[in-house]
């Protein structure tokens, strides 16, 4: 990989140990992926924020690194969800709060903006088409590439942080147009849940670029579809014919075609069927948009809460919550609207065993990462458990 004189000097430590380590990591990634050079990025979105997933060593790493000379971000940088709502207490234990606060502080010290969300594009950072980014949250990466036409690889927590420090990323993968071309066509025959469709397709395609045909889908649907595919597979880019920005840029002639109908989706539903009753309902993976929050409120408004219901948690970004006061007020009669965190990266297992969700991504991660049995159902069904 070609390095400019300035980049060489950073690697040699001229700007301190922090930028030198950051450059070392970017250069190694450039080598692996045969990048020709580093390119400037507009923003970074950094994973590795929840104390639950990071543990003490992750915390130590961020603190250690933050102490290094010159370890300051040089572009706009946001965070992935933390392990708790930063402004109000939840189901997390007290010592967890302390550790989580330390971790957040370590990022803040490096100049990272304390916006902890998996949907930065709904919380004040909506990139334009063609912008280069270094984002790490897999569902946000998928959304930025596919729906917004921005360009980012699926960065790791460390590589996003190092890119934020340098303000650049190696030029490879999805930064290059030719790698954004579809690999396989999915012909969707019936109207299906985007979340379950994503759950199914992600498991099949791995890291290929799927191209959907026959899918009529909203922006919120695209968000769920991409999130689920990035969880059961590692899809960082997809196309939907006549919907997403770059779908028309490539020919799909000669590609393998796979048909999907309701029967296939029923198969996934059966896989996610859990017979015991849920003790918690978790909505908002990825974080809810303004529209989705309103949809939840509409399903609850004016209804009577059942006597015995599972607890209800709605996860969203602070920005969206602040903008949606009316909906929040309605929902909070039935459950809690939580920001800065989500059901997967917060210690849900401290209090709950069986979780019901409408998210394909959450359904994929909750069993492993929060020790939950999972029930997948649509939003309406879930709300009927409460009212």
């Amino acid at each position, binding site marked *: 990989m070609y390095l400019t004189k300035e980049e060489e000097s950073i690697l040699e430590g001229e700007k301190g140990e922090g930028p030198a380590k950051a450059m070392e990591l970017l250069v*190694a990634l450039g080598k692996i992926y045969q990048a020709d050079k580093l390119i400037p990025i507009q923003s970074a979105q950094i994973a590795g924020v929840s104390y639950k997933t990071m543990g003490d060593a992750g915390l130590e790493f961020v603190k250690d*690194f933050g102490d290094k000379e010159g370890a300051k971000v040089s572009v706009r940088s946001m965070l992935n969800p933390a392990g708790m709502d930063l402004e109000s207490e939840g189901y997390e234990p007290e010592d967890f709060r302390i550790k989580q606060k330390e971790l957040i502080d370590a990022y803040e010290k490096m100049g990272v903006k304390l916006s902890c969300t998996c949907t930065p594009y709904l919380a004040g950072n909506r990139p334009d088409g063609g912008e280069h980014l270094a984002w790490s949250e897999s569902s946000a990466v998928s959304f930025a590439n596919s729906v917004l036409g921005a360009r980012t690889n699926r960065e790791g*927590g460390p590589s*996003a942080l190092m890119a934020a420090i340098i303000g650049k990323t190696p030029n490879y993968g999805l930064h290059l147009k030719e790698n954004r071309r579809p690999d396989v066509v999915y012909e969707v025959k019936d109207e299906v849940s985007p979340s379950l469709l994503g759950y199914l397709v992600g498991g099949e395609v791995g890291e290929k670029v799927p191209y959907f045909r026959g899918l009529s889908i909203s922006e919120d649907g695209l968000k769920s579809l991409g999130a689920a595919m990035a969880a059961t597979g590692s899809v960082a880019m997809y196309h939907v014919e006549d919907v997403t920005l770059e779908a028309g840029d490539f020919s799909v002639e000669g590609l393998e075609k796979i048909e999907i109908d309701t029967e296939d989706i029923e198969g996934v539903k059966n896989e996610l069927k859990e017979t015991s009753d849920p003790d918690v309902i978790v909505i908002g993976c990825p974080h809810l948009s303004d529209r989705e929050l309103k949809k939840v409120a509409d399903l609850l408004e004016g209804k009577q809460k059942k006597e015995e219901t599972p607890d209800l948690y709605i996860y969203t970004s602070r920005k969206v919550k602040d903008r949606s006061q009316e909906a929040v007020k309605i929902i909070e009669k039935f459950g809690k609207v939580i920001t800065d965190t989500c059901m997967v990266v917060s210690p849900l297992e401290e209090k709950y065993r069986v979780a019901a969700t409408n998210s394909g991504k959450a359904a994929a991660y909750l069993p492993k990462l929060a020790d939950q049995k999972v029930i997948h159902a649509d939003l309406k069904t879930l709300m009927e458990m409460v009212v």
Partner: protein
Amino acid sequence: MNLQGRGIYEGEAEGEVVKVDGSVSFLGDVDPATGEVFDEKDISGSIFVFPGGKGSTVGSYVIYQLKKEGIAPVAMINELSETIVASGAIISEIPLVDKIDLDLIREGDRVKVDGEKGVVELKGVELHSEIGLFLEKDGSILLRKEEVKGKTGKKWSILFADKESQKSEKLLDQARLELSKEIKGEFEFLSKGGSVSVREANKIREIHPLLFKVKDDLDLGRSDERYRWTDPGEIKDMDTVPKLWESYLSVRDEYES
């Protein structure tokens, strides 16, 4: 013997191989408290061999956590490294080499890794060079049934012989000699493919495949029933000695180019 790969992160380490066949999601598949992968194998202090990383990008910090706890692998070897494992190796300063044919490394092997040069040294494993001779006639390939050491039943194979010389011009002479010992006939040399390696016990067989065209009918002698003319496309699905299909592709591709 040494396997040459690509050095991703520098450093030297020696240890015993713990190997898994599937991609690893360090967040979820590896327990950061015990160093166990897939709830069954302990990777602490090992040379951890796996195809590559997948899953959550927080996995890099799990590697760092293992290192801090003193239960990380001493080195890692991948078929192809990706961001999660590479970042984890770099921030944790664990030597990492990729672009290695993992079929050549076995669980329990004693291995030395040089992350700078990208070299993996398999201790006590020897290189054994062979020639493998494919005979073609009218689009078919001649296969024969062979006993395979340590295996029950016979496998479809071709004629193999120890490679006697390093010089390529002598290779052809040897090949013709080996052929004449087994089969009477006239052969025209078509191509020599790149080598294909197979791990067997404490040796790695480096097979140099050669393709010959059979000019006239063959006299296969008394052992006629051992032989079969086969459509090459079928080799892939037949019960053959290891990597016969790969060896065939190697000579065929060379011939076609």
